């Protein structure tokens, strides 16, 4: 078939359906399942959750801890390295929040009117990358927090137990300490690592194909200009 015939064939095709204004209005009233809209919503929810976390961490450090410091000190002494790790993770969360917020603002600002195909693809990929990083960041923070809580709990439990038995820490046989630490680490790696891998697998399954499909489409457009 000649190419000019294609146009003739195409012009012969028309839609059997013609919607009136009421039908179009009805379409608008239905909620769409657009993935990008959902991701944008999730990014904003993610920002909200991070903001609440930051406020809670600040309140914990500056209000609750000084308020209950006396009682808490009597119960257990938190080691300095755990406090340092906690400060480090809090600072990381705050810095990352600012980084994501700025990045998201620039991606969204890139074209505020209706973009062409290339700009749209870049914008969607930009949003998806932010979403992906936000997800991994939350996952790593959660894993880190779980690991810290686990180590902190294990340390406190062990020292309390030793104290209750009326012996000094230095008197505990090294092989028993190593065994307890080793078992603790195995449990830690299995639970935290398992949760991390499961969540990562879920994310890749949900968005992995979509991201690579969009990347390929953008590459196809870019190949032409290079």
């Amino acid at each position, binding site marked *: *078939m000649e*190419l000019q*015939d*294609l*146009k003739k*064939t*195409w*012009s*012969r*095709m*028309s*839609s*059997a*359906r*013609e*919607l*009136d*204004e009421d039908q*179009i*209005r009805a*379409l*608008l009233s*239905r909620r*769409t*399942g*657009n*993935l*990008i809209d959902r991701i944008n919503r999730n990014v904003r929810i993610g920002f909200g959750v991070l903001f609440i976390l930051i406020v809670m961490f600040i309140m914990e450090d500056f209000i609750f801890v000084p308020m209950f410091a006396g009682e808490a000190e009597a119960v257990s002494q938190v080691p300095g390295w755990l406090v340092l790790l906690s400060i480090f993770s809090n600072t990381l969360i705050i810095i990352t929040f600012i980084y994501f917020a700025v990045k998201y603002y620039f991606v969204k600002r890139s074209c*505020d*009117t*209706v*973009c*062409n*195909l*290339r*700009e*749209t*693809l870049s914008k*969607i990929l930009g949003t998806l990358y932010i979403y992906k990083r936000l997800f991994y960041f939350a996952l790593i923070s959660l894993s880190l927090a779980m690991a810290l809580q686990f180590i902190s709990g294990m340390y406190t439990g062990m020292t309390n137990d030793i104290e209750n038995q009326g012996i000094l820490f230095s008197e505990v046989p090294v092989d028993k300490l190593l065994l307890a630490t080793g078992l603790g680490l195995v449990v830690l790696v299995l639970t935290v690592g398992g949760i991390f891998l499961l969540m990562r697998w879920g994310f890749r399954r949900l968005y992995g194909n*979509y991201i690579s499909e*969009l990347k390929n*489409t953008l590459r*196809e*457009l870019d190949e*032409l*200009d290079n």
Partner: protein
Amino acid sequence: MEQDFLYIIRENQGIIHKVCNIYCDHEEDRNDLFQEIVAQLWKSYPSFRNESKVTTWMYRVGLNTAITTFKKNKRRPDQNKMPYENLQIADENYESEAEEQIRLLQQAVAQLTGIEKSIILLFLENKKYEEIAEITGITQNYVRVKMNRVKKKLKKLMDKGE
């Protein structure tokens, strides 16, 4: 504003139907995409400032939505079938030859990539290189290059199907 929007969509809904027809093989998918495009058009309508033609804006949003819409890969027994129950041949005296040509065209188009589909759609709609460049975001020269490649590919596919 809503009334103006509804009027524009009603008058130009053929554009949306064509985008849906070229990107979807099944009635259900076409309906979903149609709804999605109308929703996206409504969302972008406040920022549409008549800087470009209404049809250009509609093609832009329609093609952007069709290409970036997440495909759920619904399993269907007739996955490879290309029904066109939603289409009709405008010419009342249509012949089996015309029907065969439409079938060939649809089969060939289905094998193109998302970008190729958009280029061929705009070619079939007699759009100028300038407007195609505006819609896709590539330069006019490359639209020309891509157009030639897609036309060759489509011709080859159709010849193979004959």
